């Protein structure tokens, strides 16, 4: 039913219009008198010491990499789940092999300490 996707575009148009229109209305009615102190980044009243675009911990990067691996794997599960009855034992065994490989990788990253957050 590809034609059932058409309402998405209608919906997206309305969804785009609502924040844009409200922001424009808000711009028309609100006061606007900025000055230098007001426009500084908020640091609980202290002048910011350095730029915010500094280095941050590599843990976030590891989480992102692991997420890509596991999420792509979840996407593979969806078509299998829909066709589960049709594929029967063959599909079940195939998917168990796939999951077994994934679990080996999971145990490996656990042992490597990639899941620790210290």
């Amino acid at each position, binding site marked *: 039913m590809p034609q059932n996707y058409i309402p998405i575009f209608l919906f997206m148009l309305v969804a785009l219009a609502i924040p844009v229109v409200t922001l424009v209305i808000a711009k028309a009615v*609100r006061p606007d008198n900025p000055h230098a102190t007001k426009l500084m*980044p908020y640091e609980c009243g202290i002048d910011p010491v350095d730029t915010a675009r500094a280095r*941050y911990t590599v843990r*976030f990067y590891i989480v992102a990499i692991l997420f890509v691996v596991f999420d792509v794997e979840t996407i593979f599960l969806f078509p299998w*789940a829909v066709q589960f009855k049709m594929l029967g034992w063959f599909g*079940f065994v195939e998917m168990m092999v796939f999951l077994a490989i994934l679990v080996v990788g999971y145990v490996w990253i656990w042992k490597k300490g990639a899941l620790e957050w210290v």
Partner: protein
Amino acid sequence: MPQWLQSVVDYVTKSNNTPGWYADPVASAIWALIYIILIFTGVSIAVIAMNWLERKILAHMQVRLGPMRVGPHGLLQPIADALKLLIKEDIMPDQADKVVFWLAPVTIVITAFTVYIVIPFGPTHAVTDMNIGLLFMLGVSSIGVLGIIMAGWASNSHYPLMGSLRSSAQMVSYEIAMGMAVVSAVLMTSFKGGGNFFRQIYGTGGASVGTLSMIGIVRAQEAQQTWFLFKFFPLGLIAFFIFAVAMVAETNRAPFDLPEAESELVAGFHTEYSGFRWSLFFLAEYAAMIAVSSIAVTLWLGGWMRPFASLHGPNVEIPNYWSGGAIDLAFALVPALTFFVLALFAFIGTVRMPKHRAFRVQTIGLAGFALALGFIGLVLLEPHVRDRVQDIFWFSLKVAVFMYMYIWYRGTFPRYRFDQLMHLGWKFMIPTGIAVLILTAALGLGS
């Protein structure tokens, strides 16, 4: 009557249509627009109501009164807040990335609302029915992370950046467990159950096929005469539990509200936002909460099905009003009764108002509110409205339970530490999710 108007009327009055795009483009566009407008107004009203309810319920949990000044029992407080935000100065830090700073709230609002396209409020009450509805929903809700990263990065300030990094790490970690739980629910749609209704509609030959269509998933629960929550007890329950925890983490709510941890990060990724831009984040957060609750209701709690849907009771005949089971009739009257009870509460509140002339406007307002609630109850008694609206009522009631749980968590649980959060997500939820998935598939082979 022109052709398109006739088909719109047909669609609104008949209860066996499936939402979608039909041969008549004008009529289809009008149906879609009706539901789009209903969804936007409905969700906005729900967000306003949630704002009031959250403050009141949290306050009462902490033995406070909560808002009491603006309107009777603070009922108009959310509206006063919205007006305040509208006329509040909007500050854009001069070191911010202007374009991205402007785009971030718009992105978040669009993604939070787009999820509602496929949510089936009833068998006919949805904007459209897609064959990949569930996948679409998961995909769109993941884009919300992008908006949060954009907001944190564009602000060029320490707290927002840290908040958005935490938020995205948390959301992607719990998305995996969430995906596992969702796949086990999709597996259940192809299993055998009490009836064969599902295979008559969607079946192909002997083997039944699963479905990713949101309406199809609820139809599968109807056909199997069970909510997936109770399927293969306790497997359905565990999958539901994983989803219920992951959805709190996905929406950055307490006890997983680290991205907005007030004591450490001021307000997390939206620290630099003020005025109406900030209120767009607020709107998106609550819209996303309602959306994930709706997914949970659709997948495990039978969507629009009423409780005990397989019981009908002895036949009852009321001329011009009802012919069918007595239990069906009892449940069909619940929506109207709910509104009458609400009207009664509002009426008691009116009577108990202080008899001082300073409260006269408030008393009249509350009496009007009670009358409006009673009137809605009367409208819901009308046979056509009753039959068309009760699906929406049961769906909304189940979602409302989740919304209450959200507030309850916030009033009860202390915030997690970040390493505990990641530990729970990666070392407990994901293995449990895989185990539930494998067990469901193994049991499903035999059914």
